[in-house]
C-alpha cells in the first residue's frame, strides 16, 4: 500500500450495485405518473397507501417520553429482560413448558435480520453442522445472514409454479436427503415471497421428518398475526416443534406486526434441552453480540414491553393486528373478484389461497415489465405482489394491468 500524492489506498475498491428492490423503489418515487402502484415494498400500508403508525404505539411513546423514571442507560448485552420474557411468551405461548422449565434463552436483537445474523454466528461457532437449507424461493436477504457467518447454503423445493402452491412432496424429499444435523430455515407463517404456507398437518409431517433425521429447525417469524389475525394461531408451527421437547432457534421481528420497522426490534430465542444448556448458550450469545454492537437499542423494545405487559394495550394491539390482517385478506378478495369479473384468463384462486402480506402472482418477468411500462405498476420480477400496496381505489387499475399483460400474450 504505497500511495503517491493523491493516490488512494482505497482505489481498488469496487462499487456495489444497489439492491435491485431498492433501485426499483427509487424509480417508483421518481415516476411522475399520478396513477402508479408500488407493490414491491415489504412494508404494510393503509388503504391510502400511507405508512401506518399503530395507535397503541403512539400511545405508548407519549407515556414513555413523559416518564421521568426512564433513562437511556446501556441495556445489558442480551437486551431488556422484560422484553425478552414477553417476546418468548408471545411466540411460545404463556404456558409453554419450555419457558416454565427455563429451557429458553431469549436475547433482544435488531429485528428479524439481527436475530438471524446472531443466530447464524452462534451456530457457526457452536453447532457442529455448517449447512443451512432454505426454501426455494425465500426472502432475498436470507442467504446473506448465513453467508456472512460462514455457513453454506442449500435449498429445498418449496414453491410449485404449476399449482401456485406448496411443492410438499419435493420439500419432504429434499429434507429427507439432507444430511443429519443440517440446519433448516423455516418461515413460521406468511411465507415471503410466495404467500404459501404449509397446513398444520403438513407442519406435523415436516416436524416428524426433521426430528427423525436430526435436522435442526431455525424459524423466522416476521408475521405473527398477519395470517389469521390471531397471534396464537399463527405461532402454531413453532409451537408444534417446541411441544415435542426438541430444540430449535427462533428469530422474531416486530417490524410488521407492531409497525416498528425503523426501530429494529426483534428477539432471538434458542429452545434448549435443559436449563443448564440454555444458561451456557446465553453466556455465549453475549460473546457474539458484544463485538458486533455491544448491546441493542432501547426504544423499540421499551414500546413492545409496555404494550405486551399491559392487558388493555395488548388487547388494543391485537385488534390493530387483526385489522391489518383483515385488510390484506380483503384486498386479496377484491383483486380476485376484479379479475374474475373481467374474465381474465387463468386460475387466479391462488390470490385468495395465499396468506399474509405477499402473493406470488404467477406473472412472469416479461409480464411484470409490461405492467411497469404500460401501467406504472412496480413489483419485483419474480411476480411477488405486496397486497398492502393495494387499496379499494387502486385494485381496478391493477386488475386492468394484469388482464392486459395476460391477454396481450406477453
Amino acid at each position, binding site marked *: 500500500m*504505497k500511495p503517491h500524492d493523491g493516490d*488512494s489506498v482505497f482505489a481498488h475498491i469496487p462499487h456495489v450495485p444497489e439492491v435491485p428492490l431498492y433501485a426499483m423503489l427509487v424509480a417508483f418515487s421518481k415516476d411522475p405518473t399520478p396513477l402508479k402502484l408500488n407493490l414491491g415494498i415489504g412494508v404494510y400500508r393503509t388503504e391510502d397507501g400511507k405508512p401506518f403508525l399503530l395507535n397503541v404505539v403512539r400511545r405508548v411513546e407519549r407515556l414513555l*417520553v413523559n416518564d421521568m423514571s426512564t433513562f437511556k442507560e446501556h441495556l445489558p448485552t442480551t437486551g431488556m429482560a422484560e422484553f425478552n420474557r414477553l417476546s418468548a411468551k408471545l411466540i411460545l405461548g404463556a404456558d409453554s413448558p419450555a419457558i416454565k422449565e427455563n429451557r429458553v434463552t431469549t436475547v433482544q436483537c435488531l429485528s428479524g435480520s439481527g436475530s438471524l*445474523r446472531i443466530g447464524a454466528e452462534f451456530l457457526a461457532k457452536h453447532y457442529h453442522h455448517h449447512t443451512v437449507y432454505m426454501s426455494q424461493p425465500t426472502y432475498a436477504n436470507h442467504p446473506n445472514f448465513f453467508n456472512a457467518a460462514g455457513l453454506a447454503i442449500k435449498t429445498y423445493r418449496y414453491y410449485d409454479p404449476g399449482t401456485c402452491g406448496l411443492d410438499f412432496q419435493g420439500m419432504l424429499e429434499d429434507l429427507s436427503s439432507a444430511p443429519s444435523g443440517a440446519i433448516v430455515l423455516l418461515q413460521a407463517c406468511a411465507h415471503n415471497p410466495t404467500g404459501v404456507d404449509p397446513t398444520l398437518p403438513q407442519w406435523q409431517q415436516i416436524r416428524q421428518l426433521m426430528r427423525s433425521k436430526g435436522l435442526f429447525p431455525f424459524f423466522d417469524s416476521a408475521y405473527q398475526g398477519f395470517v389469521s389475525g390471531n397471534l396464537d394461531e399463527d405461532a402454531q408451527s413453532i409451537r408444534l416443534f417446541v411441544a415435542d421437547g426438541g430444540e430449535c432457534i427462533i428469530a422474531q421481528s416486530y417490524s410488521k406486526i407492531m409497525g416498528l420497522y425503523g426501530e429494529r426490534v426483534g428477539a432471538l430465542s434458542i429452545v434448549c434441552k435443559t436449563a443448564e444448556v440454555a444458561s451456557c448458550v446465553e453466556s455465549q450469545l453475549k460473546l457474539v453480540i458484544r463485538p458486533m454492537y455491544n448491546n441493542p437499542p432501547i*426504544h423499540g423494545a421499551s414500546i413492545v414491553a409496555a404494550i405486551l405487559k399491559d392487558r388493555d394495550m395488548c388487547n388494543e394491539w391485537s385488534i390493530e393486528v387483526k385489522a391489518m390482517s383483515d385488510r390484506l385478506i380483503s384486498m386479496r378478495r377484491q383483486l380476485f373478484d376484479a379479475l374474475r369479473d373481467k374474465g381474465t384468463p387463468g386460475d387466479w384462486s391462488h390470490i385468495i389461497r395465499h396468506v399474509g402480506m405477499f402473493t406470488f402472482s404467477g406473472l412472469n418477468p416479461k409480464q411484470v415489465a409490461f405492467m411497469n411500462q404500460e401501467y406504472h405498476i412496480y413489483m419485483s420480477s419474480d411476480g411477488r405482489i405486496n397486497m398492502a400496496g393495494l387499496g379499494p381505489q387502486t385494485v381496478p387499475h391493477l386488475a386492468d394491468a394484469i388482464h392486459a399483460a395476460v391477454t396481450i400474450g406477453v
Partner: protein
Amino acid sequence: MASTMLSLASVSPSFSLSIQGKIKLGSLERNNLFIKTESFGRMSMVAAVNPSRFEGVTMAPPDPILGVSEAFKASTNEMKLNLGVGAYRTEELQPYVLNVVKKAENLMLERGENKEYLPIEGLAAFNKATAELLFGADNPVIKEQKVATVQGLSGTGSLRLAAAFIELYFPGAKALISSPTWGNHKNIFNDARVPWSEYRYYDPKTVGLDFEGMISDIKTCFVFHELYSPEGSFVLLHGCAHNPTGIDPTPQQWEKIADVIQEKNHIPFFDVAYQGFASGSLDADAAAVRLFVARGMELLVAQSYSKNLGLYAERIGAINVVLTSSDTAARVKSQLKRLARPMYSNPPIHGAKIVANIVGDPTLFSEWKAEMEMMAGRIKNVRQKLYDSLCAEDKSRKDWSFILKQIGMFSFTGLNKTQTENMTNKWHVFMTKDGRISLAGLNLAKCEYLSNAIIDSYHNVC
C-alpha cells in the same frame, strides 16, 4: 421413527430416570436410545431424550467491567463507591437524560413521524450532521464529498463495520492498538478476523504517555520475537479522552504521530467516543482528527453519541471514511452498506432522529452545547477536587498532578492489581483491576474519602 416425546406418564413412580442432560451419548450424531423400564409387570418404552445439540457449549467468562457493577450492587457498605461505571452520573450520582434530548423526543412525537425503515446507510440528515460535527461544516473534504459516512450502532457497531471492511479489502492488514485500550477493541478485531498488535502507550512510571515507545512501535512493532510493522497497517487512535487511561497526546505529539503514520504509509483509524465530553468543546475535541484530515490523509473515524448526548442505549454513531476523491468515497460507502445489510439490514431510527433534530435546530444545538459543557465541567471539577484532596491528605508529597493532566471520564490512578483490591476490600471502592476509575461515578462530597483510599492503597499496599 417415533418423535422424541418425553412420555412421563409411562414412567412408574418407582423408577427414576435422570433425564436432564445427564445421559451422555457417544456422539452428537447418534439420536436414538431406548430405555426399557419394567414396573408393575408392564413394559414401558421411554424414548430417552436426544442430548442437546449444544451440550458442549461452555459457560463464557463474565464481562470484567460488568462484574464491577455487580459487586458494587451486592455490597451493603454505606460508604461504597462505584467507579467502574462508564456512563455519566450527576452530582447526586444518578443517571442523566439531557433536557435537550427530551425536547427533541417531544418534537418528534408532536410531528407524528413514522417509523419506516431507514436506508441501509442510515438517516441522511443524521449522516450529514455527524460528518459536519466531526470535520467542521466548512471542511473541504465535506464540501468536495470525499467522506463516506454510514450510520452505525454507536461506536462499537461503527468500529465493527470498519473492521469488516478492512478484513474484506485489506486482507492480512493489521490493526495497531494502544496498550492498554478499551477492552472491546480486541474483541471487535478478533471477531472480524483482523489481526492486531499493540503499540506502547501507557507509562506506569510517569502515569503518563510513553510517547517514545508509541512512536517507536508505530514504526516497528515487536510481535513475539519478530520485528513486524508492515506498511499500511491501521493505527487505532483515540480521538480524545483515551479509554482507559485518560491520557491524551499533546497537539505537538499529535503532529509527530501524524508524521510517523504518513512515513510508514499507515492508515489512521480514530475512535471518537467523547467529542465535546472531554474538554466541553466539540471543536477542541475534534482537533486531532482535523489535524490528520488537514494533511490530506485518508483515514477512518468511528463516532459515538452515547456519552456526549447521553444516548447510550439508543446505539447511535457513525463510521466515516475520508478518501482522496468523491468517486472513491461513493464506492467505499456502497461497500460499507453491503457489510451492514447482513448484520441488521438497516440501523435504528430513534437515536438518529434525536441527533439530527438537535444538531439541525440552532436553539437545541446551543442548549446541547451548554449541557455538554456542564457535564464536562462537573468531571473537571471532580478531578480538581480529587487532586486537591490527594495533595492535602497525602503527607508524602507524591506528585499527583497526573490526575489533572488526564482528561475525560476516566483516570488511571497508577494503582496496581493488589492495591486495587485493597481499594475494594478495605474501602468499598469498586473499580477495574487495571487501576482505572470513572470520574463520572464520583462527586465532590466523596473526593476526600476516595483520596484517603487511594493514599492508603498506594503507600501501604504493595
